[in-house]
């Protein structure tokens, strides 16, 4: 780490750039919107450039083009992949019906993996862990009953319309309250995460950049 008066080396320059970017973002917090807007555009541009570079150097060249050039005859799947890359790259000039193909394949396959994984990796093991068993102890049984009750109450809070009895209305209101309490807890965790980020940036400005307290 470098201080304010150290010699100008590569890491010093990086520290200065990072410090200026941090000040611009914090300036947005204080009402300076123009420079903050530019920093957002800069971030978007850098991220896009990094993504493009990563796609070319880590995916398209080593995993698609090199295997194709080495053995063009045996990898039909890679030829299909090359066509999909071409369709994606040509999206601005091609009809929507054609460019929808690679996007649909990407979304569909991701959804399939995510759904399958959620069932096999989360739903079934969690049900197996939570479910009450005849040989389980009292605590496990209480946890299982509590989990089932909370799940049922939260699910009833999603019921909308149709005739309801008094009991169902109370259950639905309780479910909504539980949902809000859960969201409140989650927002508390989020606040902690963001606060740590802010304190880290202040530490960076004061310590790494200005060299105070080091």
């Amino acid at each position, binding site marked *: 780490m470098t201080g304010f008066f150290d010699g100008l080396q590569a890491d010093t320059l990086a520290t200065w750039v990072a410090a200026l970017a941090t000040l611009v973002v914090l300036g947005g917090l204080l009402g300076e919107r123009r420079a903050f807007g530019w920093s957002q555009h800069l971030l978007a541009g850098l991220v896009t450039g990094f993504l493009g570079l990563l796609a070319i150097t880590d995916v398209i060249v080593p995993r698609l083009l090199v295997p194709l050039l080495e053995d063009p005859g045996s990898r039909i799947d890679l030829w299909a992949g090359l066509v999909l890359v071409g369709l994606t790259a040509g999206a601005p000039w091609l009809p929507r019906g054609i460019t929808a193909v690679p996007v649909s394949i990407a979304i569909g396959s991701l959804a399939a993996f995510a759904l399958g994984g959620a069932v096999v990796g989360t739903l079934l*093991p969690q049900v197996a862990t939570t479910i009450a068993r005849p040989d389980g102890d009292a605590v496990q049984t209480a946890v299982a009953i509590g989990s089932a009750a909370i799940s049922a109450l939260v699910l009833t809070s999603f019921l909308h319309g149709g005739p309801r009895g008094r009991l169902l209305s109370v259950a639905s209101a309780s479910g909504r309250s539980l949902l809000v309490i859960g969201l409140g807890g989650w927002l508390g965790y989020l606040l902690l995460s963001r*606060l*740590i980020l802010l304190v*880290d940036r*202040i530490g960076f400005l004061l310590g790494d950049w200005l060299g105070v307290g080091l």
Partner: protein
Amino acid sequence: MGLLLRAAPLGLLLLLSVGWLLPQPSGLTLAARASDIALRVEATLDAMPESPVVVVGFDPDIGTYPEIRPAVRALLADLLEREARLVLVNVTPEGRALLLAEIGRLRASSERAVMVDLGFVAGAEAALVALSRTAPAPDAPVALRAQLAADGIAAADLIVVVGGNEIGPRTWVEQVLPRVDQLPLVAISPTVLLPELLPYVESGQVDALIGTPGDGAAYRESVASTPGAAADDRLVDRLALLLGLLVGIAVLGQALGERILPGLRIGGRGERA
């Protein structure tokens, strides 16, 4: 009132800066006192064979990485001290950017560290499924390269997942563990993911989770004697964090009071009448 609201962010920044500059009170600790997390992590690492192969899924996000960075660096240093062979992989671009910085730091601090970088693998969940079958590692030592090519992630003795909001321990539990015969998994994640991940710890799918700054500090204290584990990064400033939390509680309390107070006044008038 308008001026006060406009000055509030500046006041918060000044308050946090003062908190950062003041000496840390001796009674204010970050490490969770009753945390058994450090013991669980150490027990999982102790159960590994000699010179273990450890697959590190490194996909934190930039917004939450400062929170887990001290614990991540301590764990990587601990693994290298145990002569683990690290196989590093990313499935998110953000994770790739952060990993490149960490690899540079590790290579500079430890010349004899065995690190195999599988690079960025596109496809998110699909990439993890592919890696659980085969993990091409052209730069790895010959024996390890053959192992990874034949068995994929199953060639490892331990999985370490450094997670973020996009891809994290949950994705690894769902996509990789069912395919690699339940390898032990240690995870480091930001606090915001804690409610999502605790059920996996309770079910035993995740062997140890460092999921809060307190857990991270406790683990870091337990490996403080390990070279490189605690020297090159500082924990989050405790006093500044406490002051920020107090401000947050005050703001939330004020908002809650504004909602509740009118109701109490009406109730009081009704009773008097």
